[in-house]
């Protein structure tokens, strides 16, 4: 037999087995597209310009590895249905005189076709989806997005390499299965099925350990996400692998227990559904674990993204305490007061109605939180390391005046407001000074600098100006020109609307620059417009991946129903012959759905809860400090998702019913 024969024969086989091959090819295509999209997003040059680019970049890289792992398991799973159904055909060919190596060759060509079609299709689909989603989401956000549409040739190569590897593995596993059986076994192949599985305690325990280990890492790791990369990577991989193990072991255990309950088991609905599920539980468990993992990814994406969007106002409020925020960074008090007076002058010229205002003076000192306490460093050397902190010193007078309080401090005492991490010390030792912490505050003076910084910040209230000045002197002595100045903050609100505010903003900037005052002028209205652009990128990625994973999930559930439908067809035909009505078929299918239905969604919920500390840490870095908003939002996302899942499952159960019923006996 020459190669020409195999090339033609294999093509014919694919056509002939269209109803198994077409869904399979679609699945392969979509998986390839999914990998391509996530991987190319991580290389998108627009990413560099976004806030938290390195975090995002890291998440996308991690995401692409998880998808690669997922693709391997999922395609192997899908292939197992395919091979099972084709064993009979191979058995006949084997008996008719085709040797096993000829079968292997045929299979190789078939795989080759599937590989070419699904990879080309997948990459094209990936590029097209990328573009369509991009346009769609830009429309939804209605703003500029820093991420452009982008074609990544190197990602195409990565995708090809990954899929060559996956297809090789699939091919080897198929050939192994065919090789291990004699023609008679092959002939019975699709009927023979797997034996009813035994409970595997080892896998179950390993699964629990893996998932638990993953959870533990997420719960205890303190470092910011991009610094703790290896840990989080481990956590995700552990949870993914553990989920597969746990599902395999626990679903068999659950069904075995149900089977032991005689009065439960011997009910029409349960009887058939439990035995059916138990019979192909190994496959079924992988299918459920696939759904669970995708559900988790969807939930994480959607809940964190939507929290970010909803929290955007919240973020703006923390970073921009007033409509206009001016930071005077003159050489000393006098300079700053001059600038302050000048701004007042403009306010009067413009006849502005000031509805609220805040003015105070502060000193920013950065430090490294080392073993031997806080070691001050020049502010411009701060790089975003996790052990860096910012201290913002203000005087008691300013604090009391701004916050309308009447706190009292002796010399050497301080008040501390921790912005993110608790301040767990009784004293603050800095430079050659030591301060007693008198009280931990729960309210702070608005300061965008604190909010904006990636490092943890503490507001420190000192007793008086002299104290602040001596701190300034100490750091001047140590850092020289790199020392930070005593600055002033002036924030005020007006009764102007957004557009007018932006005009005023330009006016202030010009005035500030003309007078050569040092400092920063910020406007909430202007920032809002900018933020939408910056966070829009996050929203884009979140929405994009959320939709993508949801599509994948629908496809997987659909595939599961189709392949199981063809598997169960013969069995339902027999049951109908013995006297099972269509109604009973339907209700037993529904029972099958119900028994196992909630499992992936419940486990996905637990996964999301365990990932919560990790995600909230990430969101904290993006200044989403409103954890309660995030919790509420995650719960809402979860409920919506559950409903969606329920609908998808019921729609696809109909497909299953149709397939099963077609195999039934003729009924007038």
């Amino acid at each position: 037999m020459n190669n020409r024969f195999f090339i033609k024969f294999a093509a014919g086989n694919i056509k002939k087995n269209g109803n198994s091959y077409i869904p399979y090819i679609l699945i392969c295509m979509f998986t390839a597209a999914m990998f391509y999209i996530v991987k190319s997003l991580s290389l998108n040059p627009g990413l560099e310009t976004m806030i938290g680019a390195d975090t995002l970049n890291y998440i996308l890289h991690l995401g692409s590895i998880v998808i690669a792992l997922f693709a391997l398991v999922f395609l192997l799973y899908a292939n197992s249905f395919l091979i099972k159904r084709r064993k009979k055909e191979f058995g006949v060919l084997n008996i008719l005189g085709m040797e096993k190596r000829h079968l292997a060759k045929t299979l190789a060509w078939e795989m080759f076709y599937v590989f070419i079609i699904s990879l080309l299709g997948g990459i094209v689909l990936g590029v097209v989806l990328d573009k369509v989603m991009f346009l769609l989401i830009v429309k939804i956000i209605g703003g500029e997005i820093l991420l452009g549409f982008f074609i990544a040739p190197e990602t195409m190569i990565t995708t090809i390499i990954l899929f060559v590897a996956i297809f090789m593995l699939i091919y080897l596993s198929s050939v192994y299965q065919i090789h291990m059986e004699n023609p008679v076994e092959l002939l019975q192949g699709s009927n023979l099925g797997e034996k009813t599985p035994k409970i595997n305690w080892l896998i179950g325990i390993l699964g629990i350990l893996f998932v638990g280990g993953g959870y533990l890492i997420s719960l205890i790791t303190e470092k910011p996400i991009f610094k703790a990369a290896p840990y989080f990577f481990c956590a995700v991989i552990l949870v993914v692998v553990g989920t597969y193990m746990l599902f395999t072991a626990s679903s068999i255990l659950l069904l075995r227990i149900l089977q032991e309950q005689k009065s439960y088991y011997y009910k029409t609905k349960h009887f058939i559904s439990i035995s059916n599920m138990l019979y192909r539980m190994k496959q079924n468990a992988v299918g459920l674990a696939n759904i669970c993992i995708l559900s988790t990814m969807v939930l994480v994406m959607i809940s964190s993204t939507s929290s970010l969007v909803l929290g955007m106002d919240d973020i703006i409020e923390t970073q921009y305490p007033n409509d206009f925020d001016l930071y005077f960074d003159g050489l000393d008090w006098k300079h700053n007061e001059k600038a302050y007076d000048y701004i007042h002058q403009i306010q009067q010229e413009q006849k502005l109605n000031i509805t609220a205002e805040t003015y105070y003076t502060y000193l920013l000192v950065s430090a490294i939180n080392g073993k031997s306490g806080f070691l001050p460093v020049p502010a411009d050397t701060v790089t975003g390391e996790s052990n860096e902190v910012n201290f913002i010193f203000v005087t008691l007078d300013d604090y009391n005046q701004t916050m309308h309080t009447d706190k009292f401090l002796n010399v050497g005492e301080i008040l501390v407001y921790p912005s993110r991490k608790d301040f767990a010390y009784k004293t603050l030792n800095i430079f050659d000074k030591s301060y007693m912490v008198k009280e931990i505050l729960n309210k702070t003076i608005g300061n965008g600098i604190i909010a904006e910084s990636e490092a943890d910040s503490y507001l420190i209230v000192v007793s008086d100006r002299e104290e602040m000045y001596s701190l300034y002197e100490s750091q001047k002595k140590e850092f020289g020109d790199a020392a930070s100045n005593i600055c002033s903050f002036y924030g005020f609100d007006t009764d102007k609307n957004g557009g007018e505010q932006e005009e005023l903003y330009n006016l202030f900037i010009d005035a500030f620059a003309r007078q050569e005052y040092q400092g920063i002028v910020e406007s909430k209205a202007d920032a809002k417009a900018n933020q939408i652009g910056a966070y829009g990128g996050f929203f884009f990625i979140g929405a994009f991946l959320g939709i993508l994973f949801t599509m994948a999930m629908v496809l997987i559930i659909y595939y599961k129903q189709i392949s199981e439908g063809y598997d169960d067809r013969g069995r339902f035909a027999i049951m109908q012959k013995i006297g099972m009505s269509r109604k009973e078929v339907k209700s037993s299918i529904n029972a099958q759905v119900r028994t196992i239905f909630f499992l992936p969604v419940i486990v996905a919920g637990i996964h999301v809860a365990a990932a919560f500390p990790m995600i909230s840490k990430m969101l904290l870095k993006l200044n989403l400090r409103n954890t309660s908003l995030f919790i509420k939002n995650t719960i809402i996302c979860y409920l919506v998702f559950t409903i969606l899942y329920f609908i998808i499952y019921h729609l696809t159960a109909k497909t299953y019913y149709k397939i099963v019923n077609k195999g039934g006996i003729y009924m007038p």
Partner: protein
Amino acid sequence: MIILETKSLQKIYTTRFGGNRVRALSNVSFSVEQGEYVAIMGESGSGKTTLLNILAAFDKPTSGKVYLDGRNIGEVKENEISVFRRDNLGFVFQEFNLLDTFNLQDNIFLPLVLSGKKYKEMNERLQPIARRLGIAKILTKYPYEVSGGQKQRAAVARALITNPKLLLADEPTGALDSHSTDDLLKIFNAVNQDGQTILMVTHSTKAASHASRVLFIKDGEVFHQIYRGSNTNEQMYQKISDTLTLLATGGDYNE
């Protein structure tokens, strides 16, 4: 008392494009007494399977009627047909039709579970039948773990456990070796002696020779029948062979 009666059954299949009409049954009338053991023989294409499908209510006749225990099964409503079948008929198939997803016991329980019986009652019914069919010790095994003969005995147990009015067997020995065939035919004789009415469709002269009456079908009609009377199995075998020879050579056999 007549348990099953068919009156001028006719079944015409129309091909897909409506052109050709194939007459599978042209005029079949016969009746089966309570406690009888009837075998139906005929060549491939003679209409045996069509007849069985109609008797089992899998299919409807083009014209004619089937009465089971006095009830016209053509009038059983569509949504009751499954229950009707489950309560009145027991089936034994050539390919056993056991489900790999169940062990033998659960396979046998299946029709009872469908009828909503309690486990205790099912188990009480199962024990005597299982002992009688010699499968009591293998009840927890799965179909793929036992031999063909054992599978068929489990299938018989599944058919009998509902105490059906009529046991329908479609080539029950077709997939069995001679030893298992003998076992199964002995079982059929034994349950028949206990009063179970059996209707068996078969190719096998040997299987048919155990029946109390053999009907021959040719070209969609009942062509001939042989009553056992006082004949032994061997004599029945001879008579059936003769008739089959006549059928095959196409001689104008007149009764």
